[in-house]
């Protein structure tokens, strides 16, 4: 088995008496899509924060690309190659889609202290931005202000921004949140097209997306890992059915 690119070891986090992450261990192997699911309040958001670097765990370690990153902040982890798509769209609304991706590419390539040459005249930067936009199918909307893009397009833009950073891992925090049926289907299609090119940790509510994409699924219940396994194993697990999927067949 190949070495995992991202590994959480016995992570714990409490806010006072409330334990939100309880001895969580999971890993992400190269090329795989690992979905993290769980009912509301299972501690997914906190766990995403811990992985991204916004929340410091009380105990445990986070290893990323063979390095202990537990003490590194969000910026440092992003520079190491942890790409992230937010639950709530985080784009620069007044910028065009292309400038948003330019910004992301700039963060990856360096040179953010270039004071004199216009950012738009950097051919390599623009090419990187356009390539990422093309990959998510937003080329035609490159000059549109991000703030007026449709919701689904904005999610795709975020994905392009993450891709422009040539990440080693994509952390997808509920990419389907707030998308309509058609938009959601397009996004799932898009993520499927990226599958295999880079490992993704997918935190998602939408079960259709999870089962369409995931190679493995980890179910989080009450802050602890209930089960990690293939979609078939998780679907069949009685504990998961009871706690998460509900009595009737939700899948």
């Amino acid at each position: 088995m190949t070495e995992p690119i991202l590994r959480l070891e016995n992570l714990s986090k409490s806010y006072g008496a409330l334990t939100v992450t309880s001895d969580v261990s999971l890993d992400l192997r190269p090329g795989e899509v690992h979905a993290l699911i769980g009912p509301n309040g299972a501690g997914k958001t906190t766990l995403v924060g811990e992985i991204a670097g916004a929340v410091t765990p009380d105990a445990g370690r986070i290893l990323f690309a063979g390095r202990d990153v537990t003490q590194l902040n969000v910026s440092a982890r992003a520079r190491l190659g942890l790409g992230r798509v937010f639950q709530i769209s985080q784009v620069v609304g007044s910028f065009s889609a292309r400038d948003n991706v330019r910004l992301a590419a700039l963060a990856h390539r360096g040179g953010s202290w270039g004071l004199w040459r216009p950012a738009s005249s950097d051919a390599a930067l623009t090419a990187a931005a356009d390539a990422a936009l093309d990959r998510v199918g937003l080329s035609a909307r490159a000059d549109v202000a991000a703030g007026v893009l449709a919701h689904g397009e904005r999610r795709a833009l975020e994905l392009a921004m993450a891709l422009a950073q040539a990440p080693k891992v994509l952390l997808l925090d509920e990419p389907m949140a707030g998308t309509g049926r058609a938009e959601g289907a397009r996004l799932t299609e898009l993520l499927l097209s990226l599958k295999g090119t880079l490992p993704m940790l997918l935190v998602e509510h939408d079960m259709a997306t999870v089962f369409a994409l995931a190679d493995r699924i980890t179910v989080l219940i009450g802050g602890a890992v209930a089960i990690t396994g293939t979609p078939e194993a998780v679907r069949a697990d009685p504990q998961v059915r009871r706690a998460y999927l509900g009595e009737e067949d939700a899948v």
Partner: protein
Amino acid sequence: MARMSRLRSPGAIALLVTLGFLAALAVAYVQDSTYWMATLARMAALALSAVSLSFLVGQAGLVSFGHAAPVGIGAYAVLIAGEFGVREVMIVLPLAFAAAALFSALTGAIALRTRGVYFIMITLAFAQMAFYVAASLSAFGGDDGMAIAGRSTFLGERILRRDHGLALLAIGLLGVGLFVLGRVTASKFGLVLRAARDNETRVRALGLATYGHRLAALALAGGVAGLSGALLANQAEFVSPSYMNWHVSGQAIVMVALGGAGHLVGGVIGAVAVTLLDEAIGHYTEYWKLGLGLVVVGAALLRGRGLLRRIVGGQHD
């Protein structure tokens, strides 16, 4: 589309503004109106200050309510250097820039730990401190201020003695200031600065640190404001703590808001509008600011995004 964007390039805008001021100066010179030549010099200097504040407010999202402080420090640099017998422009201007940039960087290092209203308050507080320090400099006029030893010289020549000479310098610096700040705005550095203005969380998550960029922006804008102060000191041939008064900072914000913070040239438009209103109404009543207030309210009601958009329309970044 491409032609429009070229017209909006920093070079084209700086050139247009410079030519506009030069044309006005030429008219004043032909008419031999020292009053208008002096007013144009003052107008260009105030515009330079407003442009640097517009860079902070509009591009970096840093609403400084203490912009009069670096302006005043630039003015005091001229006064103090003059007292020590240094009046050469090539020394005095860099000195004014450096002193004001240093002040802005030092106070900014602390002010940048805050955001929003707190940033406004802390910049105001630092400017008030500068005001009272200046008022306590009894060797340099204290409360009352002091006349400068004489206007600056250029490579030993006393070409600033005449008002059109000074106006030429002010217009030249305004053009250079607009061009440089315009380039910086469009640069990669500017891209990060503008992105952080809109969505700091996003910029951080991308792995970009914003503190250094903002600090550099504050220092640069402060330095440019210092140049403006050096010009104003030369124009009035007098320096006093009132340069740093808080209502001067407020007026600079009015200029930026009136002209539109979306584009640097808004600072020029606002400064020209405020100065002209001052000249037009100020002669009739000392309550001229009442008229200014009405104009500001009117502009806000009419468009809300500044005079530039009223005149030119369209999108400006």
